[in-house]
């Protein structure tokens, strides 16, 4: 902490301007030093993923330096991307995540609009309820939901367990409350006069939403979309509990359950799969970092 210590104020008023800027210099150096340290800590696992993914299985089991690739190869990538099951996982993940994003936005945006602008009986309680729902973790719900699906099957004959599309029903419980919550925040920041102007201009509530609110709150909608997508893509518990057949699995579960066969770990492929599984969120993050971070901080700072 001595690093930041010196950044703002010289410890003694007697010191001249020169010492102050020297203190700043040191603060800066220490900051960079620790930042480099933490970046190494934070980036080691993903880099190690990459290193391993470029190795042959011979090299992985050899007693050479594990941190270096002596014979780089793309075989792991070729093999995975050429395998039908892996592509099935990828497709399932993509279909599920994109559909969940659409479902989420269709539910969250109109709800947020109604809750932030069209006060009605119970709207305040509902907004708080939405937030509380966000705090209920999926680990509390998966067992009763599992049983509910079974009971549903008994009554209707419709099998829900081990169907990838059951995730379309389950994931919105994770995405909708938070997206509604941050959209309420974004909508609340739109001046009241804007909807009054629209009202005088003759817009209906629906037109006010689609022609004014959605375009104006577009950054918020992008942030919420990113959130919904990354949460859906990363979700692990629900697919693990609710899907088992290879054809129904999504990527994270697929990699862990099919590439780990008993005690045999094909680490080259596992790391390649993990890296490919991490790629979509990372790519979105790389291109839309500001929206990503806005969505991240919105939950606690808005509303």
């Amino acid at each position, binding site marked *: 902490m001595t690093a930041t210590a010196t950044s703002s104020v010289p410890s003694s008023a007697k010191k001249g301007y020169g010492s102050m800027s020297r203190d700043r210099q040191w603060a800066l150096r220490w900051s960079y030093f620790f930042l480099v340290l933490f970046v190494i800590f934070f980036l080691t696992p993903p880099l190690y993923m990459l290193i391993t993914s470029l190795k042959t299985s011979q090299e992985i089991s050899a007693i050479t330096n594990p941190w270096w690739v002596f014979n780089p190869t793309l075989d792991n990538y070729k093999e995975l991307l050429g395998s039908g099951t892996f592509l099935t996982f990828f497709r399932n993940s993509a279909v599920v995540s994109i559909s969940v994003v659409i479902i989420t936005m269709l539910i969250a945006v109109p709800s947020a609009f109604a809750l932030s602008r069209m006060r009605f009986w119970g709207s305040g309680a509902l907004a708080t309820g939405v937030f509380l729902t966000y705090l209920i973790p999926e680990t509390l719900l998966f067992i009763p939901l599992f049983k509910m699906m079974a009971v549903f099957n008994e009554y209707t004959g419709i099998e829900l367990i081990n169907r990838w599309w059951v995730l379309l029903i389950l994931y919105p419980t994770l995405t909708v409350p938070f997206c509604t919550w941050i959209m309420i925040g974004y909508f609340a920041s739109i001046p009241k006069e804007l909807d*009054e*102007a*629209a*009202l*005088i*201009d*003759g*817009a209906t509530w629906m037109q006010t939403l689609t022609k004014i609110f959605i375009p104006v709150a577009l950054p918020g909608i992008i942030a919420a979309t990113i959130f919904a997508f990354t949460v859906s893509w990363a979700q692990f518990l629900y697919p693990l509990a609710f899907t088992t057949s290879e054809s129904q699995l999504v990527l994270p579960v697929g990699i862990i359950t099919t590439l780990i066969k008993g005690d045999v770990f094909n680490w080259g492929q596992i790391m390649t799969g993990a890296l490919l599984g991490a790629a979509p969120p990372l790519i979105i993050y790389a291109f839309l970092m500001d929206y990503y971070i806005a969505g991240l901080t919105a939950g606690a700072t808005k509303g």
Partner: protein
Amino acid sequence: MAEVHIRKVVKKYDEVLAVRGIDLDIRDHEFVVLVGPSGCGKTTTLRMIAGLEDITDGEIAIGGDVVNDVPPKDRDIAMVFQNYALYPHMSVHENMSFGLRLKKFPKDEINRRVDEAARILDITELLDRKPKQLSGGQRQRVAMGRAIVRNPKVFLFDEPLSNLDAKLRVQMRIEIKKVHQKVRTTTVYVTHDQVEAMTLADRVVVMNHGVIEQVGTPTELYHHPRTRFVAGFIGSPAMNFIPCTIQESGGQLALRVNDQISFPVPPARAQKYSQHKGNGSVLLGLRPEHLTEAKSQPEPGIVPFDANLEVTEPMGMETFVYFPINGDTICGRVNPTAGAKDGAPLKMAADLNNMHLIDAKTGLVL
């Protein structure tokens, strides 16, 4: 084109009375300004005319039709908001035409009207810009343009200039006046700035605590305020109120301020005031311009007295001087050549021909 009638209108928020039963008739083509301090009910009144607030009691008619139950879009009004409320994602053209497009006007007609309004406001070259790319004054014009294109029965302005800096405000004030001269639409304009009210209005409505204090032309309000509130609110610097008692000595009515100062009431007013003789709590209202340096030869109704100046404010063409009477700070206006200095005594004179006498208890001008 329409007149607006407000009849016994009341607005209650939960248990708070924001507007306490006001009556107002606004004539066709008239420019009426609602003015008053914040919380006086002027904005609420405007929003009730617009239909953005429902009316607790009474009725509002636009063009002869009672509009209490008519939603805003069907009232045929246009409103300019304090923060302009321009749609940030639309160009100026789209902003101005939004209402017409929602009403499914033909394209030619929309373009004709937008061009016409843009010409009136001199914003033709801004039509493709987004609000973000405009200056405050330009946004103000676009907000007005959006109102003009709809060719409504009534324009409603809600403190449209208060987000502008002082210099631009003066400019836009003139602009608004010009536009009104061109389009002649009945206008209701809300402001807390009495200068704006005075300069823009055909008639000014002074509101306070949810009631109308006085309605009149700017000059009427300035010269013949009916209440202490109006007297104090209109005019800058504000009118001085000096507590005094009415006394009669030797057939001459006089206002005794303290042991040193007693102002004889001019004969023209004596009869009017004599009935209040003995009323111990009256206020002498004098505007700063009627408290000047004493002239060498006496004039009727102008009474000299001695003042100890505390602070002087040279403004260039005039100097404001502040001096105490009975512990209150009184403002006078003297010639720059009168030799007014901080902390120095000055022979002042009160022009009682322009005095107002106010009952301190009722607040009414006598």
